[in-house]
């Protein structure tokens, strides 16, 4: 039987790696899929072209299917995420100038979100002008992570600091020319800022919220309903790519593949930093972040409905959507653990029994109930010690409304 061609869009970011490996390493072919990978120039384009059907599937920011399904986007189209492209991968990078000011205010340079945020708060309190930070899209994990970090550090986004939107590849240049003072983005664009613009990585997603999801495979709900077998094939191909990518002996090859001009168009040494977790965070200072990007371990590809609801809680927090039981239901319905389990059952892969989990309460690895074998989850703390219990969503949202 000839392979089924699927058009799949991605942005030049390290966390497109599982999509790329699915094609390059034959995991898609094993499923009878031939992925036509299209590198896009903006999240807006991925959003719009996926909505009108130019792309069958696409790398998306985890909140994007929610935004499309909640009608926040220009071409509102019900969209789902049946598989996650890994945990982590983002960082917050600041200019050399701002880092010096933060270090003077006691930032220890160990990537820990708490002390770095406290130092930034002191810099902002003393700054004669409003600092400006860049994120990649309005309904992006980056926007919510940056805001969460700032707010929990006593900095009120929009009032104390300006947040602007730029596509990932333009952020290092914007930092270098003084247009922005810092940014939150996925790799390799933090390391490129360090290498080319003398920037400094202040903290990482893995420190703000451990084991948190970032990119997903998004697809129109209507398309998924029409092609359930293709959906299962995509999930399995991504899952197997995740296993391959999590093997340290494959990191060098994965970095070489991703470094190609058609994908990231960057040096494989820079690309490899996110895979190995060994970072030059600025000025040659090396830090190890073993959980910086997690492509497989800890059910990294499982779309937790509770995670969809966490992004929904942040959309509410920052005034993008009105809190209502109906909206919460739409948000939770965007993540599809049911489709994930259906796809993986035939290959005997371990999948969580639950659709929801509490985050922020587990400082150490733990096993969770699962189908087909044991699942060990990584720690899932928020840096400010808060607990997110999806069963108490309204309380969580209300508590954040009064914060800062």
């Amino acid at each position, binding site marked *: 039987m000839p392979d089924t061609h699927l058009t799949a869009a991605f942005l030049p970011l390290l966390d497109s790696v599982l999509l790329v490996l699915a094609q390059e390493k034959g995991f898609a072919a094993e499923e009878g899929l031939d992925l036509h990978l299209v590198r896009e120039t903006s999240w807006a384009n991925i959003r719009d072209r996926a909505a009108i059907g*130019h792309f069958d599937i696409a790398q998306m920011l985890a909140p994007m299917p929610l935004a499309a399904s909640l009608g926040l986007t*220009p071409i509102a189209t019900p969209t789902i995420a049946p598989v996650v492209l890994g945990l982590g991968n983002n960082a917050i990078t600041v200019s050399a100038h701002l880092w010096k000011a933060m270090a003077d205010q006691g930032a220890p340079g160990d990537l820990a979100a708490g002390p770095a945020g406290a130092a930034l708060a002191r810099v902002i309190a003393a700054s004669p002008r409003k600092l400006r930070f860049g994120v990649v899209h309005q309904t992006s994990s980056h926007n919510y992570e940056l805001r969460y970090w700032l707010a929990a550090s006593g900095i009120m986004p929009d009032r104390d600091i300006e947040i602007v939107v730029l596509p990932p590849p333009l952020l290092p240049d914007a930092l270098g020319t003084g247009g922005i003072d810092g940014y939150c983005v996925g790799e390799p664009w933090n390391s490129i800022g360090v290498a080319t613009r003398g920037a400094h990585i202040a903290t990482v997603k893995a420190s703000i919220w451990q084991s948190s999801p970032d990119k997903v495979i998004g697809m129109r709900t209507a398309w998924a309903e029409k092609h359930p077998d293709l959906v299962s094939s995509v999930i399995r191909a991504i899952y197997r790519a995740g296993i391959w990518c999590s093997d340290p002996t494959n990191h060098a090859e994965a970095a070489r593949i991703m470094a190609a001009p058609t994908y990231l168009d960057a040096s494989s040494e820079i690309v490899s930093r996110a895979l190995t977790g060994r970072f030059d965070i600025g000025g040659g200072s090396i830090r190890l972040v073993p959980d910086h990007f997690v492509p497989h371990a800890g059910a990294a590809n499982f779309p937790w409905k509770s995670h969809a609801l966490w992004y929904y809680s942040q959309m509410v927090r920052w005034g993008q959507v009105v809190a209502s039981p109906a909206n919460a239901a739409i948000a939770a319905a965007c993540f599809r653990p049911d489709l994930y389990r259906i796809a993986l059952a035939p290959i005997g892969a371990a999948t969580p029994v639950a659709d929801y989990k509490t985050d922020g309460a587990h400082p150490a690895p733990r096993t969770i109930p699962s189908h087909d074998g044991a699942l060990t989850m990584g720690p899932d703390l928020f840096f400010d010690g808060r607990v997110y219990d999806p069963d108490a969503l309204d309380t969580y949202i209300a508590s954040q409304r009064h914060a800062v």
Partner: protein
Amino acid sequence: MPGPELSILIIDENRIRASIIEDGLREAGHSLVAVIHDVNEVARSIQSILPDVIVIDLENPKRDTLEHFFSLSRSIQRPIAMFVDRSDGAMIEKAVEAGVSAYVVDGLRKERVKPILDMAISRFNAFSRLTRELEQARSELEDRKLIEQAKGILMRTRNLSEADAYALLRSTAMNQNRRMVDIAQSLVTAAAMLGP
């Protein structure tokens, strides 16, 4: 024209294409047309332009930035929707195919905006055609130069007449089932490696 005249903003880093669209809109009787080449300028000028319709190149990487400016803008408090009407699938398809993205102030009647978008789409398509034709002409010129070079090499090294050199290139290409320009390219590369 029913209703007050629409203010149209064109955002395009490609100055030639921007002026082609601007001309088209002016010819169609629109006088409130502003052109901006960098999305960053929008933040400064949006208050004075107060656009009803915004046309931007779909490949512009700063579309996310533009949408963010809209959300901050006090002058465009009403939400901005892409394209005329979410239900108009054919129009959306045509626009995206052409590489046009458009934002329209909510509440504008479809009949008023459709001709503007039709114009933008057809001018985008015309520009792409023009670019393709230019590219083709340029590569044909490059091909001819390569073949001339290869002919020269054969004439010098094998002491052939121009006509014989050309015939040799052509017969080699035919025998190997390759294009003449590819044979010429191989010959020029090889000659460069072998030295004078």
